[in-house]
């Protein structure tokens, strides 16, 4: 089903109303809902947060748009709360973290698969292997701190194995900056993809930076500090893909289009009818926002929005397991390293690379990600299942 962005006007802004009962709803079930329902909830929280942050920054620089932005942003605020609080209270911070990394793996994989620009695709595949590794390290922490199996959250869709080792991901800031797309030539999907992944990574950075300090265990605190730092690198990486020459109005238009695109993707594939209704409603809200911005764009930038946006939405994101694709990227690219804006095999990194010195220093007092996962191999029912079996059969010698 193609969605015509110019014809579908969605819900008018003045009809986008909330009350507290509407905003705070019954959450999804950690146990019974499909893992991709949780993936969609987390992704859309990230998308809404980016909309909110962008619109605030815009308002700080532009008097003319301030009132328009305030009006749209209030709705985004309530959408974000409603969506994010669909995550249930029986889901621990670490279990939610597993969900965040599943988003990072599966959504980055679908974006990389569909990305038309070869360099952008390469950047997504590069980042994908890093988040994939985070999933493995956090799974080890979940097993070893809370005695839980990360696959209770992942539901078999995503592998729990090392990617590009987190310990090696710490780079000099200059090695996190990438080349940007050209706003005059890039496919609209390239622009929407960049905003989608930027949003997901930004919320992940913010979440880890906030919750990591809530742990008592210094191992957990160190791991969150370490991976939060990589997520900051990812925010730097993904925001540098965006053409800085876009006007603020152009950027606003693209943000609204990204929200339309992602809610549309969620709505099409949602298995929980109650949550599907939310995606449907918010798709309509975002179409309403888009049309407000389209009108403003025509007045302010005096251009045809179709210079920026496609007439109809591109193919939606695929919310499905990308096991084969991820394994293929893992096999062929795990040893790539960033040098400036380019990626080279590990053995071609110059010996005077600033990343080498940075990495050596930050890991000089040990690596949390290596410590937490030392000897860890995922198996169904946690690694204690193997120890329990060994104890039961009297093979005590194999028990640590």
């Amino acid at each position, binding site marked *: 089903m193609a969605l015509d962005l110019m014809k579908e006007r969605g819900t008018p802004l003045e009809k986008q109303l909330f009350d507290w009962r509407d905003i705070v709803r*019954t959450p999804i079930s*950690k*146990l*019974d*809902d*499909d*893992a991709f329902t949780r993936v969609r909830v987390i992704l859309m929280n990230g998308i809404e947060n980016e909309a909110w942050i962008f619109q605030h920054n815009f308002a700080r620089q532009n008097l003319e748009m301030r009132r328009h932005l305030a009006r749209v942003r209030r709705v985004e605020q309530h959408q974000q709360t409603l969506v994010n609080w669909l995550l*249930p*209270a*029986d889901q621990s911070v670490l279990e939610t973290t597993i969900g965040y990394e599943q988003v990072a793996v599966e959504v980055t994989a679908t974006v990389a698969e569909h990305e038309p620009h070869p360099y952008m695709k390469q950047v997504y595949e590069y980042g994908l292997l890093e988040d994939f590794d985070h999933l*493995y390290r956090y799974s*080890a922490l979940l097993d*070893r701190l809370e005695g839980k199996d990360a*696959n*209770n*959250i992942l*539901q*078999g*869709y995503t*592998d*729990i*194995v*090392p990617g590009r*080792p987190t310990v090696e991901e710490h780079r000099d800031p200059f090695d996190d900056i990438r080349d940007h797309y050209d706003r005059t030539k890039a496919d609209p999907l390239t622009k929407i993809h960049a905003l989608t992944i930027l949003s997901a990574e930004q919320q992940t950075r913010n979440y880890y930076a906030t919750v990591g300090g809530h742990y008592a*265990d*210094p*191992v957990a605190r*160190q791991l969150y500090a370490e991976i939060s730092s990589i997520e900051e690198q990812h925010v730097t990486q993904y925001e540098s893909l965006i053409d800085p020459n876009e006007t603020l109005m152009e950027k606003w238009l693209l943000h609204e289009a990204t929200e339309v695109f992602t809610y549309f993707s969620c709505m099409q594939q949602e298995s929980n009818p109650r949550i599907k209704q939310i995606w449907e409603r918010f798709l309509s809200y975002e179409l309403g926002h888009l049309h407000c911005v389209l009108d403003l764009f025509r007045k302010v930038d005096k251009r045809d929005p179709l210079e920026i946006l496609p007439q109809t939405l591109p193919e939606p994101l695929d919310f499905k*397991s990308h*096991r084969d694709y991820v*394994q293929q990227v*893992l096999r062929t690219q795990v040893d790539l390293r960033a040098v400036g804006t380019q990626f080279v095999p590990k053995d071609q990194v110059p010996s005077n690379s600033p990343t080498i010195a940075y990495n050596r220093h930050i890991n000089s007092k*040990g690596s*949390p990600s*290596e*410590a*937490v*996962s*030392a*000897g*860890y*191999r*995922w*198996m*169904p*029912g946690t690694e204690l299942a193997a120890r329990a079996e060994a104890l039961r059969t009297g093979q005590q010698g194999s028990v*640590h």
Partner: protein
Amino acid sequence: MRTTQTDMNRTGAATSPIHTKAMEKAAQTFKGPPGSESAMGEIREAYSTGADPIGTVPIPTTIKGAAGTAGKALTGQFLSVLVDKLGERLAFERQGARLYEALLCKLEVSPARVGSITPVALTEIMNEEISHAGLLIEEMNGLGADPTAMTPSADLAGVQAIGLVQTITDPRTSMTQCLQAILAAELIDNACWELLIELAEGFGKDELAANMRVALRQEEEHLRRVRGWLTEYVQSEAGISP
């Protein structure tokens, strides 16, 4: 709806055998770093060495309290331990009252009441928890300790009870699930009153110990009743006659 009914729980490996097999194969193929959990222990040990405490017990608020503390210290006894544990019980009793308040709300909206539990019985227990808090406030004042301060053990009692609050106030949890949480609270409470009484006796505070024994007898009754209600609910859900 029964909270233990069988439906589409997707968390187990058996729900998706093909995916699980693929995951196990991947885990065999792509190996992680060598070593064991002891690497985590090393980080924990490094931080534990020389770590600051959670906090301290406040200095007594009255001259009598200060004199008592100093006097005991001369004999090698630390009254601050008793104050810390009294503060812990006080925090726990207040929290306990709030747990019963939330449970009462749950009982009132629950579709089918099971067995002998009644709102009156829950209210009775809640009020006894509040009166225990009152007793502890009085006793702490008597010792020259500030009952409004949060002692280190009181703080940790709050940390430990977070899961109980989360369980009982979650609109999705059943009476059975909440009674399980209350059982955990009552088991801890009983054991800790016993400990506190022994501690008071150790300090020669016989009157304090006697007052607390009255509270302990009521707590034993709370535990007995909660166990009974939980059994009734679980057996009813399972379809087993008592």
